[in-house]
Structure formats: structure tokens, C-alpha cells
């Protein structure tokens, strides 16, 4: 629990050392958030949170953003091809 948070302690990055209440408890209770639960279960699965701090939200948001880009490319290229193949 006393390690440096490698997820966000790199220079130029906002510190992730939020108070536990802000992050929300790992499961149930007031302040609980799905991301906190997911992060806790990631940690239980042997995820990088082994040094005491769950994977921060930015990582999860980046993953969803990249997946959205991939999906947009998939449907975008189908749309372009449908249009081009008949015009």
C-alpha cells in the first residue's frame, strides 16, 4: 500500500493520490462507483493494482476511447464502401 502510484505519478500527469473517499469504497456503500468496483476486481484478478492503488479511471477511459475509434473505423469504412460501390 505504500508504493508510488506508477499509473499517474509520471511527470506532467495529474496526481492520482485522491482520498479513498473520493475514489469510493471497493464494494457497496455510499460513494461506491462501478469504476471503483471494477478496479478492485481487476486488482483481485492480479491486475496492476497489486501495489495498492486500483487502475485509475483515465486508463479505462482511454481504452474505451480507443475501442470507440476502432468501431467508428469499422462502420465508417463499411459506409464509405457501400456508397462508393454503388456510385
Amino acid at each position, binding site marked *: 500500500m505504500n508504493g508510488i502510484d506508477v499509473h499517474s505519478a*509520471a511527470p506532467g500527469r495529474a496526481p492520482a493520490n485522491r482520498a479513498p473517499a473520493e475514489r469510493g469504497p471497493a464494494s457497496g456503500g455510499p460513494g461506491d462507483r462501478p469504476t471503483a468496483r471494477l478496479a478492485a476486481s481487476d486488482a483481485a484478478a492480479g491486475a*496492476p493494482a497489486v501495489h495498492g492503488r486500483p487502475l485509475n479511471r483515465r*486508463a479505462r477511459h482511454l481504452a474505451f476511447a480507443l475501442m470507440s475509434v476502432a468501431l467508428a473505423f469499422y462502420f465508417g469504412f463499411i459506409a464509405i464502401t457501400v456508397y462508393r460501390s454503388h456510385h
Partner: protein
Amino acid sequence: MAHDHAADTAHHDDHHGEPAKGIKRWLFATNHKDIGTMYLVFSLIMFFIGGAMAMIIRAELFKPGLQLVDPAFFNQMTTMHALVMIFGAVMPSFVGLANWMIPLQVGAPDMALPRMNNFSFWILPFAFTILLSTLFIPGGAPAGGWTMYPPLFLQGGNYVAMAIFAVHLMGASSIMGAINVIVTIMNMRAPGMNLLKMPLFCWSWLITAYLLIAVMPVLAGAVTMLLTDHYFGTSFFNAAGGGDPLMFEHVFWFFGHPEVYIMILPAFGIISEILPTFSRKPLFGATSMIYAIASIAFLSFIVWGHHMFVDGMPLAAQVFFMMSTMLIAVPTGVKVFNWSATMWRGSLSFEPPMLFALSFLFLFTIGGFSGVMLAIVPVDFQYNQTYFVVAHFHYVLVPGAVFAIMAAVYYWLPKWTGHMYSMGLAKTHFWLSTIFVNVLFFPQHFLGLAGMPRRIPDYAVQFSDWNMVSSIGGFGFGLSQILFVIVIVQCVRGGKKASAEVWDGATPTGLEWTLPSPAPYHSFSEAPEIR
């Protein structure tokens, strides 16, 4: 660069648990090292399956006439060999290396999204079971080439749905792997490791991951439309229904050319790690190497038309694609000169990783030169669909990508296993591979220039001699790879203990060398400090 974490990490390893026992360790693996190992073992198996198909091809071509297999099966072999080698051997092996090395190099405890990591690996065996099982269904496996061009591909039988489903799964796996790499690098670098301090292997993979996210969905979209054309009566690529088969080629190669760089950019990163180590000098022009990789990645999106010169396109488009393709030689030249300058007046030693890296440098450059030749429109008109093209891309992919993978395995194997391997056997493997790969592929330039078409099971008698030489090279190269397996198995089972630095006397750089060998199951549970 960083303080020594060997002792710290060994201590922390104790209270983070040991790996699960038995099959559960692998089925439910979330540890980046376990998943990396699974990727590497999977790709080695695929390498031998794809290699066996290549042996069938070379055995059939050993002399003119039809002797071993019927032409339909020969076509299945050429198609499946390509699909297995590209999607099953080369790409997963780079993902395996990324899994193993990126967390170690950026000072992270694991990949950012370990369960997705598990999923992205485990869909691969299903994908290839589906793809390979088409060999046993009525009508056989895909036989129209790995490019799956309509209308030929659409005239296929039962394999169409299975091959397309397999390609979708491979694409999903690659995209998930790429997301994991980007998120890990962007969020989990150790304090003080800014992007320009990041090792070149991580840089090359970061750029490759963006390429993957940009182009794998394009392939998926194209094959989805093939599927609906075949089963649901659409006519996207069916001229009879108002569609355009040429459109598929454009979409496919918009994926296909960046795909070539997906298979070579991580190799550039590996070579950029190995040459400085065994030259005992820092990498010459590290920042320009990063810009060169990024430039190559950008240019890869605007050159796809060079695969389609003979399909017919406006002269302006031909000139554009010719010039943009030739432009790639500039950043590639920067890299080759920087690698050479790294070795210049260095204190070189020739351990197996360095030997493979040097071989890469010479032989990949040959593949690059023949690529520049093929970029010239009138020359391409002559060489297209000949064995010259086969020689070109095999020089890029075998002594290029595959040699870089072997170099990486020989470089990091002691770090993974904690043991040194047999230098004698590894060097024998290197020399046999290098000699036979040239015996195998160099004569194919002559065959292509003389006009031998690719993807044929029989040929005119004037091509006999060089085909025989090429086949001998093929069998020699294939058999030499047994040595690779022997070296790895021996090293995993035991051997001289490797130090944390592994390459004593050399000057390896990077956080992975601050960990003990073998790297502990949970590494960097406390972030190292980068100065």
C-alpha cells in the same frame, strides 16, 4: 538510469502470491509474463504449421510437373501458409514480446488491462482452430490467396464463413492487444520516464498499436461485406449486382499495406535495442529513430495503390502512389544509417542476438531495395505476379521480421528463464538459418525476373534449376528451426545462471536489466525512479 530493483522486487515477490497451479494458471492468466509466454508458444506452433505448408509448396515445386499434391490443394497451401504466418506466427509473436517486455521496460507491474489481455490471447486458438479446420471440410480451405479478392473468394464453398469468422476473431484479438499496449504505455510508465526516455521497443510498439487500431477494423469491414455478398444477397463487390470488385482491393490494401508495417515496426524496435547493447554505445540518433518510425507509419496509409498498379488506375494516381512509396525509403534509410552509425567504432561482440540483428540489417535492406524497384510503375508492370514479388516480401518478412523475433528471443530469453542458453547451438542455428534463407529466397529473384508466375504448382522447364536450389534452401531453413526449439527447451530446463544484467560486459540499457533473472512473477510492484 534507475536504481537497482533486484533485491526490492525479489522481496515483494514473496507477498504477492505465486502463480496458480496447473491448467488454471494458463486458462485464467492475467499475468503479463504468462500471457506473453502463451503468445510466444502459440506463435512458435503456428510458425511450424505454416512452415510445414511451405515445405509442401517447395516439395511440389522441387521439379516441374505435378508430383505430390493436386493443384487445388496447392492453392490452399499458398493461401493458408500466408494467413497462418501473418496472423498466427508473426503478429502474435510480436504481441507476446510486447506482453513480456513493455511492462518490464516502462517499470510497470503488469499490462493495464490484464483480463482483456487474457481474452485477446485465448480467442486466437479458437480462431486458428476454425481456420485450420477448413482443411478438413468438403471443398477444402480458402484457396484464392490471403488477399481474399472477390469474385474468386466468393465462389468458394463452405470455407467462406469459417475463414471470415476466423479473420474477425484475429482482428478483435489484435485490436484488444493494441489497446492494452497503448493504455499501458500512456498510463503506467514509471515516474520520470517521459516519452523520449522510453526504450525504442516500446516506442515502436506504441506506433504499431495505433496502426492496428486504425486498420484492423478496415479489414473487418471488408470481410463483413464479403460475408453479406456471399450469404445475404448484397452486391458490394459483385459487378453483376452493381457492385465493384476493385473497391474490395482498395479497402483491403488500405489495411494491407499498414499491415506490412505492423509486422516490421516492432522489429525495428528490437534491432534498436540489440545493436547498442552489443556495440557498447548508445543508439545513434534515438529521437530521429522515433520520428522515422512515425513517418513510416504515416506514409503506410498513402501507398496502398502500389499493390494495384496493374489493375488500372489514372496516371496521376500511379505517379502519386509511386512517389509516396519511394518516399518511405527516406525514413527507412535514416534507420539503416543510424543503426550503422551506432556500430561505427563501437566495441562489437557477436553473441547470437547481435548476429541475427546484423543479418536483419543486411537482408532486410535487400528486401527494401527490391521494394523500391517494385514501386516503379513500369517495372511493376513487368514484375507483378511473378516470383520477384515473392522474393521481395519474403526478404522483408523472414530475414526481416522473423529474424528480429529470433534476435529478441535470444536477447531476452535469459531474462525470462534465468538461464543462459547454449551459445554454440544458437550460433549454429544462426549460420544455418542465414545461409539457407538466402539459398531459399535469393534465386526467386532470378525466377521472377525470368517471368515465372507466383501461385502455380507447375512451371516451364527453364525454371527448373533455380526452383530446385530454392527448395533445397527451404528444406534446410525448415530443418534448422528445430535447433531453435532445442535451444529454447534446453534453456527453459536449466543451464548456467544468468545475472541480472545478462549480457555482462555489454551495456544493456532499460529497466528490464535492473530486475533479477528470471524476472520475478510480479515485477515493479513499487515504481522505479528514472533519473
